[in-house]
């Protein structure tokens, strides 16, 4: 990995974040009724409004407002939530922590289950395992998360069964085992779509790799099957999977927006939906920017890891 590639890729990530910040700022700018109206309510007098507008800097030109807003975001001043009156930063960061409690186990479960499944399907092409994995993946990407989640709830969280809570969140400080029960169904719901993507991806890469010259050479040389599969085939098949996992962080963010609503889970997704329903500007801006930043960071990390792990490609 050359220094030039590194700086170019970092530059691209910065450009992306800049565009995202403009989109977030622009979208919240064209809201009918500006922040002053939202704070004072619709019955405020003209005088009060223009006074507060000057105070908030709303009478300045748009680019100056953007610069001021971005400066505030970068220096950690994220403002006060209009609806709850609490500081945005503490609200958002607490919610982010809880969302990660869903996202990270999901990524872990998906990697541990989908990659071996995809590889096994590639080894037994046309088998019952392969075909059923194909059908299940197709269903997985065709059913929206809120439907999967609701069906999980109907089947597994009926009060008379008592298997899983119908939603909510418990901190891990009291009873870790009980807290985990709150995570099972949301994580399972999020995992379905990702499993479909990653198992299909691993399968198709593995099929390609198994047909290469070097794998056939290894077979003819009489190397043990396990060595061929893991060292020659899987290692090469997994490289592109890294990129797919990073793209899936995008799906995961979209999924979290919906799944947290289904399971009444107090994370970043639900906070953002709440903010949008209540037109809580500072909360919308911080939440959306944070999500987009997480996604950009995941893509950046995947590209760098890919370049690092793949010595054949010199990015110039």
């Amino acid at each position, binding site marked *: 990995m050359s220094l030039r590639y590194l700086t170019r890729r970092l530059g*691209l990530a910065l*450009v*992306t974040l*800049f*565009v*995202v910040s*403009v*989109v*977030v700022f622009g*979208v*919240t700018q*064209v*809201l*009918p009724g500006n922040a002053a109206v939202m704070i004072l309510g619709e019955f405020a007098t003209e005088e009060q409004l223009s006074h507060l507008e000057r105070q908030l800097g709303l009478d300045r030109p748009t680019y100056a407002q953007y610069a001021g807003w971005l400066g505030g975001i970068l220096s950690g001043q994220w403002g006060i939530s209009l609806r709850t009156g609490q500081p945005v930063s503490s609200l958002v960061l607490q919610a982010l922590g809880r969302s990660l409690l869903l996202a990270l186990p999901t990524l872990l479960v998906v990697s541990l289950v989908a990659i071996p499944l995809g590889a096994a399907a590639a080894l037994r092409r046309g088998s019952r395992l392969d075909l059923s994995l194909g059908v299940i993946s*197709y*269903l997985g*990407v*065709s*059913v*929206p*998360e*809120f*439907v999967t989640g*609701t*069906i999980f*709830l*109907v089947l597994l969280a*009926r*009060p008379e069964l008592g298997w899983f809570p*119908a939603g909510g969140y418990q901190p891990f400080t009291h009873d870790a085992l009980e807290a985990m029960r709150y995570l099972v169904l949301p994580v399972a719901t999020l995992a379905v779509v990702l499993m479909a993507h990653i198992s299909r991806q691993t399968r198709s890469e593995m099929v390609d790799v198994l047909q290469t010259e070097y794998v056939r050479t290894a077979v003819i040389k009489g190397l043990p099957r396990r060595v061929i599969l893991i060292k020659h085939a899987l290692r090469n098949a997994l490289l592109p999977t890294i990129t797919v996992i990073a793209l899936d962080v*995008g*799906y995961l*963010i*979209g999924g979290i*927006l*919906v799944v947290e*609503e*289904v399971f009444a889970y107090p994370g970043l997704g639900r906070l*953002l*939906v709440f903010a*949008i*329903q209540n*037109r809580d500007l500072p909360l*919308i801006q911080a939440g*959306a920017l944070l*999500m*987009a930043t997480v*996604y*950009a960071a995941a*893509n950046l990390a995947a590209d760098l890891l890919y370049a690092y792990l793949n010595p054949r490609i010199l990015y110039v």
Partner: protein
Amino acid sequence: MCRPVWVRRFVSRLRHSPQGALGVLLVALVLTATAVGPALAPHNPETFHPQHRLQGPMQGFWLGTDQFGRDLLSRILWGTRPTVLFGVAATLLGTLLGTVVGVLSGYAGGWLDDLIMRVMDGMLAVPGLLFALLIITALGTGTLSALVAVGMAFTPGMARVARSATLAVRTQDYVKAAVARGERITYLVFREILPNVLAAMVVEGSIRIAFAVMLGASLSFLGVGAQPPSSDWGLMVSEGRAYMFRNPWVVVWPGLSIAVVSIAFNLFGDGLRDILNPRVTG
């Protein structure tokens, strides 16, 4: 029978693709339900039957009833229209916007192309649902703004496809010849470039319809798309959630319906891609 060559080729390729054939069949079924569903509904979808609240499937109410005693079968049949038409219309809007932006960008080239594509990259870097939610924040809630939001969320991806198709066409000899003849820009764009970009856009669009249906239903589920008393399926799941343990059918039927429509368009889109572009395999 005298059918055009492409129709015959289409049909013969369809025979070799059972998935595509299933997709065509399912999409035909869905479109039929969209067209005549309301006429088949046994009840008015908004009439309350207070003596039959939250019933399972029974005589007279074949799929059961919801929390107001409304007939679920009738609501599902009526809901086909808002749900399916939403997906198709949002995809059309995204395809239209994406084609304009992509052809412009690819045709212009140079710094304008660079600028447009960097902006599109930035938009692509926002996950689709989040992007749609942001647009709805600006436009206000409702079916129409959800439609515009999904269309705009599709624009950057479609623009990329249109741009690369434009670049591929632009270097062709017949386009160079047209430029050399001194044809106007409008002639070049509408007669030479667009017809050749269209095939790629149709394939990309048909693959996205299922995604548009899912996004639209998700937005209605989150309460920012279709509003009550619409029988939009996403909204039906959202409204029925409070009663799902008393009568699971309230959420199961609309959920299954969304899944069927989305699977139908997914199979259809994949089949279409295989037929029009047989080199790429899924």
